[in-house]
């Protein structure tokens, strides 16, 4: 038997159906629908104030919805209080009870659900051991490091084996190194226990690294959702292309002529693949590492090196071109360009994303 069997999550999916949240006249979440399948980790990603936390708190039952429906495990929980939902949350501040030691913190959930003290302790010890916290039971939260506090918070939420586990920016209080490690730990835990997780972050790298699905929000609505690869390779808007990963954005127009589709900006035309995009004003998005440096005179665009930053595994250039400054990541670190050197830039038509319109 493996751990999966113990987790009561066969029906632990979350359905968010046309949910709106209004604070007086601010619409924090506007008619949002999505589904989180059981055993998936879904991230809510977006710039500050886009409504991620609000969405998460509505799932937890900490914030009443203005309209719409929320279902967990196939049950409508819209009007249930937080303590009547099969959901646990790991708070950004961890919210560890400062007057209780680690063990009491972790036992809190089971004891609240009426489980006997002995059983609660057993459950707590198991989860603490699983998260590598054995031996710290008697410490107060103030006597733990940031990373340990974070894991206690996770253990405390996990101990109830909730249908859904919610994380609100769980790593923002950790330093950069630790953040990478802990996010991998969370992902491994989620996969090994088949947890259903909704995870809020505004760090796109974190989102891409841990998720099965990413939901990008913008000003209270879903801008796009999909797997990390879909979002990276096929952003649906200029906002998305810019928000997920680095992108060079060029405004111009799309022309369908005899030779196929051509993107034209500032009197320079290049062939592109833009199936389904109507001719007319358009924006071209190219990832920096998809741009290829060529010797001067060759390539699609002439370029002049403005700035170069040597990062060991690659060189990051800012190149002045007829399309404005372009960011280029070049893996050829042996003979980097110097400031003022002339060069050329090109890319493969399938590496450029063409978006209709200018915004």
């Amino acid at each position, binding site marked *: 038997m493996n751990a999966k069997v113990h987790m009561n999550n066969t029906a632990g999916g979350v*359905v968010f*159906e046309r949910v709106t949240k209004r604070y007086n006249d601010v619409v924090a979440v506007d008619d949002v*629908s*999505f*589904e*989180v*399948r059981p055993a998936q980790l*879904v991230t809510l990603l977006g710039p500050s104030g886009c409504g991620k936390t609000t969405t998460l708190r509505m799932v*937890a*039952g*900490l914030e*009443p919805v203005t309209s719409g429906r929320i*279902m967990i495990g*196939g*049950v*409508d929980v*819209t*009007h*249930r*209080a*937080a*303590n*009547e*939902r099969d*959901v*646990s*949350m790991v*708070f*950004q*501040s961890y*919210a*560890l*009870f*400062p*007057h209780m030691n680690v063990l009491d913190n972790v036992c*809190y*959930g089971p004891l*609240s*659900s009426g489980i006997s003290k002995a059983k609660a302790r057993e459950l707590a010890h198991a989860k603490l051991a699983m998260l590598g916290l054995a031996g710290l039971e008697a410490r107060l939260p103030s006597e733990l490091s940031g990373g340990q506090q974070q894991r206690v918070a996770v253990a*405390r*939420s996990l101990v*109830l084996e909730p249908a859904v586990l*919610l994380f609100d920016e769980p790593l923002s209080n950790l330093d950069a190194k630790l953040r990478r490690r802990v996010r991998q730990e969370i992902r491994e835990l989620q996969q090994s226990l088949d947890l259903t997780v909704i995870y809020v972050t505004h760090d796109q790298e974190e989102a891409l690294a841990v998720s099965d*699905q990413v*939901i990008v929000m913008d000003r209270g609505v*879903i801008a796009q*959702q*999909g*797997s990390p690869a*879909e979002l990276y390779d096929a952003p649906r808007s200029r906002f998305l292309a810019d928000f997920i990963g680095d992108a060079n954005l060029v405004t111009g127009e799309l022309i369908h002529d005899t030779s196929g589709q051509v993107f034209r900006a500032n009197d320079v035309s290049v062939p592109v693949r833009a199936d389904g995009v109507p001719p007319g004003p358009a924006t071209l998005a190219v990832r920096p590492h998809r741009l290829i440096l060529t010797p001067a005179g060759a390539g699609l665009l002439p370029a002049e090196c403005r700035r170069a930053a040597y990062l060991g595994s690659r060189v990051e250039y800012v190149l002045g071109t007829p399309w404005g400054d372009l960011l280029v990541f070049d893996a050829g670190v042996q003979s980097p360009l110097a400031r003022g050197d002339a060069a050329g830039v090109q890319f493969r038509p399938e590496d450029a994303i063409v978006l209709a319109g200018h915004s």
Partner: protein
Amino acid sequence: MATPLTAARLPAPRTGAAPRDLTTPLFAALALAAFALVPWAMSGGPSAIALLAGHAAKWPKYAAVVSLAPVVVASVLALVSSWVGAARLTAMFAGVALAWAFAQGFYAGANGPAFGLGATIALSALTVCLARALGRLGLFAGNATIATIVVVIGVLLLLFIFYPIGSALVAAFQDAKGNFAPHLVGERLFTEDIWGLGCFGGGTRCGVAINSALLATIVGLLSMLLGLALALVVQRGGQRYAGLMKVMSVLPVITPPFVVALALVVLFGRTGLITSWLEYVGIPRSRWIYGLPGVAIAQLITFTPISFMLLHGALHAISPALEEAAQTLRASRGRVFRTVTWPLLRPALANAFLLAAVESLADFGNPIVLAGNFEVLSTKIFFAVAGAQYDAGRAAVLAIVLLGLTLLAFFLQQRWVGRASYVTVSGKGDGGAPAQLPGKLWRGCLGIAGAFIVFTLMCYAVILTGGFVKDIGRGDMTPSFRHFLDGFRVEWASHGLFFSGSAWDSLFTTIQVAAVSAPLTAVVGLLSAYVITRHRFAGRRAFEFLTLVSFAVPGTVIGVSYIVAFNIAPLELTGGMAILVLCFVFRNMPVGVRSGVAALAQIDKTLDEASATLRASTWRTLLRVVTPLLRSAILVTLVFSFTRAMTAVSAVIFLATAKYNLSTVYIINRVEAGEYPLAIVYSTVLMLFMLAVLLLMQKFIGEAKLGRRGPGVVVAAQ
């Protein structure tokens, strides 16, 4: 891949209802049990159902069937509907039962029984049912517990703050027989007695309202200036004057409000110590202390500590960096004070002025001892209902005038101060030392502060020694325990200790009442603070307002309102101990609310939320997470409501009886009877007792907390 949903793909919801609620039917059942088993009326006797069955002989004009049958039937229906989970019906039936119960009670009035234990249990249980059902319906963010807290406290506030004040207002429109007589209001309200301006013409006396307003203005202004001088000395004088701060913060807490007046009589009365000495040097004896000067001096000494605490806080909040910045910009000390310190203090000064004025308006203890022919509203109200010429209508009109003046002061406070207080903008503590005061100002402040301290010490010295000499009133300073033994004699009798001193009864009652009301005050106040700060629900602002309103109501007004409202069935409480407890709980509750709100602001809200997501019920969260973290706020509230209950006089002087007498009332009576030594010795005992309580509590909390009187405590209108 998770694509946006279409309705067709939705799994069918299993059940939308939350887990079954058994608590609501439990309370409905409790109400029914009370109807069946517990005596309905105050005077005991049959239960409600027995009354229905025809046992209403005691109240001949009382139609028990019409009065009580609908209540019982609606309660049964509420039980049934809550059992099947029909929240809307439960709310409706519980609401009907409550409304009918109160309506019949008030309609019957003196013809019917007064609500007793059975009625109290049943109506409380029904209120809980109603609240929980409203919560289930989605009000109060769908939280039945919060609904219960808000509704129950709200109902209590309506019953014990708004209903009595409303009754007093109505009484103003009634003649002596209780008939509606609107023309009387005008007659009573616009009289020379209240509004006369004679004293400014040099001729006859002024009306009481004018007297009160004049006194309040004088005391407000002077105590603001005195408080400022003291605050400047303490704040800018460094460590040397820190002890002063401590004394000033403790004195108002432990001093019953007539102690200073007593001391003044002993010092400056016709046979006073200083009067006699002055006669020696050729200044003839007079009664100047009885009247405006005496009351003003007594109030100054009593209330200056409050202005001081407020201004000290404001001075403390001024970042030294601001003054240092001014200095580096070439400003002289005088210029720094004029252009930086003073303007930043202005809102606090206005506040200090108004709060002292409000205290002066509400003060009862000093005027009753010292006012003589200089009548003020608070004592005039008392004399309108005390003694032979009981005239509730006149008392009510005077109460309205007093309430109006007080509200005017609070209104001005909101207008002038409301938004104008300058919170220091910088987030980080800049450190730095506060600027030195200009030399002349510093010396002036030191002089004033010194004089104030000497005078205050003299007053307290008189009180502390006065009880233990033969007759301080006549200057006979031979040590003697006679007065102490009069009040506090303890004898060995055959059956054990016998407290034969005349003061024991009132002291025991007072301690009992204070000890019962303090925890209740803490519970009600802190629960209110919890729902106000932690939960959003429709009507939250209104609820917050309700909880704080009793602050603005002078004690005399509450007192007269209570006897007007609670003298008659169905809420017939006068003469008992319960009314004393209720009076303290609802008068002191704002203290609990304020300190709870302040303490909760320090505690991260996500702790409650974490608790909720871990399946803890709201009660469990309150008990396990909030309460332990609020420990010191709870203790502070307990101490303050206890000491305030021990020292209050203005409201309870209307409510105390021979059977349930209170210390302060007993002392006032001794003063009225001219038995100053006993009054003084009793005051000493009270102050020492409370000092002991404070010190004991300080051991528990650590002293940092006690010295700080929250802004709420400062407004405490006696």
